[in-house]
């Protein structure tokens, strides 16, 4: 491609960051010194253009090392990958974790989202900002949910360098957050993932049974606790057998859409186009959700095994784990687990000596809620802006790189392990007829024991909240996160199933259960939700791009108003909300009005 580059040159550091990822440039056309051979023969074309998917890892490499992405660094990366600089710039500016302007090496992300806001995030922010002003070498950025809700309020410090260093402070105080930012290496170790599982050690747990029990770094320990029996079973029954078991088990997607997993796999496996891909969506960004993080931190090999089984079932030989950028520990654990599995032949050319080849590449997100949408996630992996595609065609037909792709959430995948070990009938006997198996719930907010709970489908909201120790003066419960809906304290008998919540006019979503007491002003919460959607809208379609702004503006106007004073704006909200729901391209815009609508209709906000 005849790309245009400006005069900016990369620094040695920037060049090293890129070269560490990509290897040294092969020719002067890619940035090496000029040689006589280069001036006679240049290779390019398809092979050169096919490396676009390394753009996001490349941007991470620079951002990790330097803390921001300069013109020279971006141009160099583009030269190496044959990517037009304008497009790369469009990609770099899409993600919240990247900066194309100079900034301090350390960025402290302070979560101001729902659970943390209820736990005093604004005071934390104000305190931290007062201590870490200009010249402190730290840039403080207010962040959407960091997925640390069980330890709210939370902060994450990232210090660029070689290697990049991170430190989590949660529950954070001003003092601890400042320490994490200024000396990430000496910040206290994060507590074990098991502390996020109040039920840890309970032998009846099917999904969380190993969290806190096995050493998450040890493949042997994983195998000593039943690991890799499911994969062996999968090989025994063959891909069609796996799909049948998953179908008969009644497993549906746990990411929020509740699509039958067996059908998705069947369609992918049957797609005539090749190759097939498996993508695990670990871009867990729904405010209030942190279950995937806990699984990956506490039982990483289970995900490696589950991805291998899924890939085997759909006929994929390459898998991608798209992991949220704000999850450094999960990243570290998964990298380690994949490396170990590869070393032991549990990933690679000949898994378990069965002649089946499969490997997993981790792709790190960079701060974009929208990339949890499957087609946006594909675009993100491919090195494009994380904008959703229109469907149809569906991913099972044209997914990642335009090829048939099975895309599943972490929780969905790890359910496959018990299905193959206990068998579909036994699995299907758990839960209700329409919602089978165990479910993970992310409980936070006004409860004594926040964390991830595993319950069979069918338990009521009240039972779950009791287990978590709900506190007095409960005002509202948000189910399903920002894209979900509020229910009242007198609705605690809602059964936690897909059909039960639907009947009750609400949603289970990704399993978020956020409890709020009456100290939190509802209009402020709604405003925070609206801000979230405004910030996270990709901007592609008009209803969402402008609609989320108009929604936030209206909620701003009525934050202190009620009744007739708010009526006109509520009408406006309803009309805009309806169009967002009906006419947006993807689920983000379609659900951006859900929580607000439920607060108005169900909780009587603004009355």
């Amino acid at each position, binding site marked *: 491609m005849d790309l245009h580059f400006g005069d900016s040159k990369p620094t040695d550091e920037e060049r090293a960051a890129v070269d560490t990822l990509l290897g040294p440039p092969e020719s002067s*056309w890619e940035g090496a010194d000029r040689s006589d051979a280069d*001036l*006679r*023969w*240049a*290779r*390019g074309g398809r092979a050169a253009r096919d490396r676009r998917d390394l753009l996001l890892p490349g941007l991470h490499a620079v951002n990790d090392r330097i803390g921001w992405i300069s013109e020279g660094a971006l141009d160099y990366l583009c030269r190496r990958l044959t990517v037009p600089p304008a497009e790369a710039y469009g990609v770099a500016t899409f993600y919240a974790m990247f900066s194309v302007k100079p900034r301090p090496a350390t960025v402290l992300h302070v979560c101001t989202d729902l659970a943390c806001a209820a736990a005093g995030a604004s005071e934390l922010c104000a305190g931290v900002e007062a201590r870490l002003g200009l010249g402190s070498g730290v840039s403080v950025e207010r962040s959407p949910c960091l997925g640390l809700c069980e330890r709210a309020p939370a902060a994450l410090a990232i210090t660029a360098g070689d290697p990049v260093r991170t430190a989590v402070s949660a529950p954070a105080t001003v003092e601890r957050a400042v320490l994490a930012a200024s000396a990430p290496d000496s910040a206290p170790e994060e507590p074990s993932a098991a502390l996020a599982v109040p039920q840890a050690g309970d032998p009846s747990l099917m999904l969380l049974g190993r969290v806190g029990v096995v050493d998450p770094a040890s493949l042997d320990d994983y195998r000593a606790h039943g690991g890799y029996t499911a994969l062996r079973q999968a090989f025994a029954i063959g891909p069609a057998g796996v799909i049948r078991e998953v179908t008969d088990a009644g497993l549906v997607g746990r990411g929020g859409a509740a699509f039958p997993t067996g059908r998705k796999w069947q369609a992918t496996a049957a797609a005539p186009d090749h190759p097939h891909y498996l993508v695990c969506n670990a871009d867990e960004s729904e405010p209030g959700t942190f279950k995937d993080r806990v699984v990956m931190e506490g039982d990483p090999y289970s995900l490696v095994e589950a991805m291998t089984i899924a890939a085997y079932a759909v006929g994929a030989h390459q898998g991608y784990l798209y992991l949220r950028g704000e999850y450094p520990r999960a990243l570290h654990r998964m990298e380690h687990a994949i490396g170990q599995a590869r070393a032991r032949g549990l990933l690679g050319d000949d898994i378990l000596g069965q002649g089946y080849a499969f490997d997993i590449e981790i792709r790190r997100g960079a701060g974009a809620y929208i990339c949890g949408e499957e087609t946006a996630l594909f675009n993100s992996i491919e090195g494009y802006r994380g904008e959703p595609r229109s469907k149809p065609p569906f991913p099972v037909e044209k997914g990642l790189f335009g090829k048939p792709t099975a895309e599943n959430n972490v929780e969905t995948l790890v359910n496959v392990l018990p299905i193959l070990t206990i068998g579909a009938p036994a699995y299907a006997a758990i839960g209700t007829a329409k919602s089978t198996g165990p479910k993970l719930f992310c409980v936070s907010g006004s409860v004594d024991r926040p964390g991830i709970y595993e319950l069979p489908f069918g338990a009521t909201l009240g039972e779950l909240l009791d287990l978590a120790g709900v506190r007095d003066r409960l005002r509202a419960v948000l189910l399903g996160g920002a894209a979900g809906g509020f229910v009242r304290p007198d609705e605690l008998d809602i059964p936690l199933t897909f059909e039960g919540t639907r009947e009750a006019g609400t949603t289970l979503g990704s399993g978020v259960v956020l409890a709020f007491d009456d100290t939190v002003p509802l209009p402020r919460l709604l405003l925070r939700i609206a801000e979230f959607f405004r910030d996270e809208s990709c901007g592609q379609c008009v209803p969402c791009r402008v609609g989320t702004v108009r929604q936030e503006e209206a909620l701003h106007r009525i934050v202190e108003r009620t009744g007739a004073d708010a009526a006109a704006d509520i009408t406006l909200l309803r009309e805009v909300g309806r169009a967002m729901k009906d006419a947006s391209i993807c689920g983000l815009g379609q659900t951006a009005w859900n929580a607000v609508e439920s607060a108005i209709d169900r909780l009587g906000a603004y009355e």
Partner: protein
Amino acid sequence: MTKRDRTPKTYTRLQYPLVRDSRDEPFRRATWDEALDRAARGLGAARGAFGLFSCARATNEMNYVAQKFARVVMGTNNVDSCNRTCHAPSVAGLSAAFGSGGGTSSYAEVEHTDLVVMWGSNARFAHPIFFQHVLKGIRNGARMYAVDPRRTSTAEWAEGWLGLNVGTDIPMAHAIGREIIRAGLANDAFIERATTNFEEYRQLVEPWTLSLAEKVTGVPAAAIRELAHAYARAERAQLCWTLGITEHHNGTDNVRALINLSLLTGHVGRFGSGLQPLRGQNNVQGGGDMGAIPNRLPGFQDILDPDTRLKFESAWDTVIEPHYGLNLTEMFEAMEEGSLKAVYCIGENPAQSEADSEQAVRRMRALDFLVVQDIFLTKTAELADVVLPATAGWAETEGTTTNSERRVQRVRAAVTPPGEAREDIDILCDLASRLGHQWKYADSEAVWNELRSVSPDHYGMTYERLEEHQGIQWPCPETDRIEPTYLHGRLWDADPASRGRLAPFGLVQHDPPVDLTDERFPIRLTTGRRLDSYNTGVQSGSFASPLRRGEFVELCPEDAERYGVVVGEKVQVSSRRGAVVAPVWVDPALRPGLAFMTMHFPDEVDTNQLTIEANCPIAGTAEFKASAIRIEKLPVAIQVR
């Protein structure tokens, strides 16, 4: 640093005729009657020593009338156009192989081919919209290879770029041919069925081993092998070229060497497989098709064919000279000898576009009489005795032009011409009438219909159909059907009778550029175009292109360092013929010993003072692409940006 004015010289439209009694005098304004009378007198006096330069930018209709003027009014076949300076070798080479001088494929086929070879063509700059079709092809999965001394924008899209030495195209082509034969990839069925001379060709290319080709071309053997295999193995392949092939002293041989590869592989005469010379001017194809060349009558019909002559003689009520006329190059030589005394130059600017332009100017000064018909007072017009203001063909007249894919398209008048400027055809007719021939054409369509009546390939193209189909490709002999988009499908016909004349392999030898580099002139200068400029800049100079940076001599970083010069620094550039001063630009797409210039800014830097007038003996095109130069630092550094 002095700020350089990037606005090139802009030309103002000619509004009325200009005449003068002697070349020493300034022009004075004249009436049309006076100017035409003078022109008629001057031309009439030179019967037998006359030549006409027709215009490759004007319409088919104008070219038809112009060549008719030369043949009927002036009784000569001395008619040619700047076709000669660019693509005459393509026409000569293609017609020698296939009997017809047009590209064999269509743009749309490039979108559906498997392999594209861009040889000596920076189409990304010179033919951007054709290159969009190539890009569609690439997006559809085609692979593209580029053969060019420079790694141009076009080459940056290639699977492989082969950076050969200037003027070593034949060794490269022959080595590719040999490799295809050696690897058993030749299309034996096609060779057997549709070609002649294969055995001689095989022997001809046999010495051109990959390693010898590597020595001569500078391109690694592996790269040549890769291209050979890619081309031969593709199910469909397009071979495209531009001036990098034709603007050499052996341009026609270069073209033949490329055509050989298509014959060897059967990549011609099928949908998606063919040969595409990309034409430099809007009607360089049509000018030739209309007979505004010394060896063909309208419809590309051979003058030497008695039946053809008879047809035209009866249609035009005249006698046609039974031999070829002089081509542009030969006309210039005849000026030198004194056997050509008067020239009628329509819309051409040879004073700046010819290689070794100093010599061209000197020769034109020696003419007894020169009439120039143009829209501007060009450098050539400044030499004239009579200057006739014409209309801009593409925006001020009705008619047709023919593009590189042989598509005849309607040209329409959108603005009224300035002052007293008149249409070329009307001027030609008025001159004809003063010289005893009363021609009456109601409009351009009447001219076209006359052409249709004498050219079978154009017969089926009525103005109405041209409008309906947004242009029609020739051949179009019937008014009720459209022929396939590609030529020479006949070569694949199972019936030998329908196959027609078989295509001969061209037995051409390598002959290095005439202007050799040596210790005194160690750098090879090659020339080309930039995206936003055109030829001598007379047209393109008038709009404010943000890309334009004026003329530079472009060097590779290593040479710039060697000479101790920096971007913007003016240097002396000398060849064996002349010297110019030009600022330096550094382009990493060049390699040591290779420099690049354009001819877009002759009023700023007259590049053609450096180029050599070493002509292709068959087509007459000069070797613009290869001169030997040296670079010298000026005593006092002058920098411009």
